[in-house]
């Protein structure tokens, strides 16, 4: 477990899922930004959200194609 870096709350306010343009849920423990609509979790590395679909983790369970 590495020490968590915090993400600027002002930045979180303006970020959306690049695929769906829908709001994201910030999972502080997992350091991920979750897009329920796209079924993707975008990683946050060293406090920097990686907002690329290629780098995101597909959510398990209810898979959505679009």
């Amino acid at each position, binding site marked *: 477990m590495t020490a968590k870096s915090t993400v*600027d709350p*002002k*930045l979180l*306010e*303006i*970020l*959306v*899922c*690049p*695929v769906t*343009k829908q*709001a994201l849920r910030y999972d502080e423990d997992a350091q991920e930004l979750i897009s329920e609509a796209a079924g993707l979790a975008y990683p946050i*590395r*060293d406090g*920097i*959200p*990686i*907002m*690329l*679909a290629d*780098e995101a983790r597909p959510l398990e369970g209810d898979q959505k194609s679009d």
Partner: protein
Amino acid sequence: MPTSESENSAIIFDRNAVRRHQARAAASFAEHDFLFREVAERLADRLQDIKRSFDVGISLGARGDHLRESLMGNDAISVLHEMGSNTGSPGIAFIGDEEALPVKPNSADLIVSNLALHWTNDVPGTLIQCRQALKPDGLFMAAILGGETLTELRQVLMEVEAEISGGVSPRISPFAELSDAASLLQRAGFNLPVADSDTITVTYSNVFALMHDLRGMGETNAVVTRPKYFSKRQIFLRAAERYSELFAGSDGKIPASFQVLYLTGWAPDASQQKPLRPGTASTRLADALETEEHSAGETADPENSN
């Protein structure tokens, strides 16, 4: 939502190659960043001419510190979130792709970009996403490389490759022309679109120094159909020779031109200037010009004419 409709736009650039080139260049970018530094200054000057302050600014394709340093100098911007393509660049707030912009619609007062958007395949789609990310009356200002960039190198490589291998391959990326730029902005829904250009000429001792610098900037060819093997050595040796023959100055050094296009547009807002309906003018043109009005002969309403 009418966002990235990339299916109908051609894939010209290999976006992964762009990202790879920039990531590879990140570590020693500061040694090759003169063009970015220069253009950052010019963008900052232009922004200063616009007497406005901006709460939330976003910088797209940020690399290095220059734009932040140049822009934050005039404290017109409260917050600047910088989006980069790799985590190797200093000051990056988030990683994103301009073609799939992860920015909430209606959330930014300013979007700036210093020499990044010329690598997008879907320029209209990218501009539309920028316009949507802006609040009404928000400003979009981007510097991109234009079609006259590296015109000397283009000419030399084409000539030499045709001479040696009997064919020509795309070795230098194609870029937008100034004549297209304003209409691109307009079609993306920006108001008061303006496009203009500057040419920055840099001199090098030879072609190899130029190529070294381009690689250092992370600006080497990323065209999908680029040759994926190393080019024949003789092509570059011959190119170096021809470049000097055609373009070298009296000191033996060779020039390389970079054409920079500046694109400016505003997200529509009711407060912006717009043309009045015909016939609603409250001042005579003749009065404004301090001249006497002469009838041109026919008038639409002869009863009221003088």
